[in-house]
């Protein structure tokens, strides 16, 4: 069986492993690196529970081979919290009750994070469009949208205070 040595930067730290060609990125993260924050939902490219950032872009890690990530950068939900402090996008979900069962949350957080990196002040329509590949079966999305807006407002507040 074909195996390959890969090097992937995960939350900025280089990780090396020897993997089978067919190993999916989500399994590499969860089973090889023990980063189980990334969830496997539908496993058919629909639900977005497995969303991670690949070179800064949110992608469905159940539909990427680990070998495709060789030499590239990955960020998972574990990379959001810094020094014991929740990232503003995580705080937004906390404050606005942006989750119920929590299954879709790691994917929602990564998509929300990537959206705010690209567009610091998105409209409701832009938020809904951005999360349209992430399914939530509990919340009806209302509080998820509010959570992303909360994070955007908090970041704006910080920018204003700093200025």
């Amino acid at each position, binding site marked *: *069986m*074909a195996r*390959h040595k890969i090097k992937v930067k995960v939350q900025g730290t280089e990780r090396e492993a020897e993997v*089978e*060609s*067919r190993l*999916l990125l989500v*399994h590499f993260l969860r089973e090889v690196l023990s980063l189980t924050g990334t969830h496997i939902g539908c*496993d*058919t*490219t*629909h639900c*977005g529970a497995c*969303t991670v950032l*690949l070179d800064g*872009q*949110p*992608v*469905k890690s*159940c*539909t*990427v*081979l680990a*070998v*495709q990530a*060789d030499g590239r950068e990955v960020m998972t939900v574990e990379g959001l919290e810094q020094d014991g402090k929740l990232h503003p996008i995580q705080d937004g979900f906390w404050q606005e009750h942006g989750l119920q069962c929590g299954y879709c949350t790691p994917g929602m957080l990564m*998509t929300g994070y990537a959206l705010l990196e690209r567009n610091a002040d998105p409209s409701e329509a832009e938020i809904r*469009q*951005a999360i*349209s*590949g*992430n399914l939530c079966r509990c919340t009806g999305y209302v509080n998820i949208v509010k959570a992303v807006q909360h994070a955007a407002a908090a970041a704006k507040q910080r920018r204003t205070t700093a200025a």
Partner: protein
Amino acid sequence: MIPAAFDYHAPRTLDEALALLAEHGEDAKVLSGGQSLLPLMKLRLGGAAHLVDIGRIPGLEYVREEGGSLRIGGRTRESELERSELIHAKLPLLADTAAVIADPLVRNLATVGGNLAHGDPANDHPAAMLALRAEVVATGPRGTRTIPIDEFFVGLFATALDAGEILTEIRIPLPPPRSGGAYEKLERKVGDFATAAAAVQVTLTSGGAVEKAGIALTNAGPTPVRAAEAERYLAGKQPSDEAIAEAARLAGAAAAPSADRRGKVEYKREMARVLTVRALRRAIQRAKEH
């Protein structure tokens, strides 16, 4: 779900990729964005003993004007088309199309070349490229050849590409002034394939008549469908409500969809007609603004 075992190759140049395809022949498949191929392999509906990943070959991702045509690198991602100012300005039909393919996360990896080379009539770019009268550039061991889009889709999941060829570029003639296009898709939810969809590209005369029209349908048969009768009917006519209605009727009649959980044949044909009306109206409006 885990794909059956295969070997993975990551060539750094087009020549290396072509050599791998030549070496492994029918046992090899090109991996572009992987957003159609990997799900098929996970479901074990498709597969290959060797995957040749073209993602590490520089120079295959671009959108640029050259020689009177718009050229799109085969590995250009859908999200790039969606954000390209050039595409929005020159080919709104393509901007419309890119924005409704799968979902935003899939579009960060899915590529235009892959969308065409997969040969799936349910994909959205095939109809759009038919309406735009695009050409596909295939690179193989003996160099490159250009395939007119009307000759590209030869059957369900089958294209004119040889096993040893890679789709490296799509060329679209730059539309003259007073041109516009639109894509209208009916889907049950974001990420679903089209129940029906219509791609339209029109050019108007200075007198406001339709000089030429490109009309094509998604998921309306084993290959994407050009509504040739509708195109011929519209040419030379003022785009009145009656003319649009008749052209759309002809387009609906050209649809030969199969019944599935998305609907019956009659329903899908009717939706193809309705979506053609909407796409024609929007395309004509855009042509008037240019």
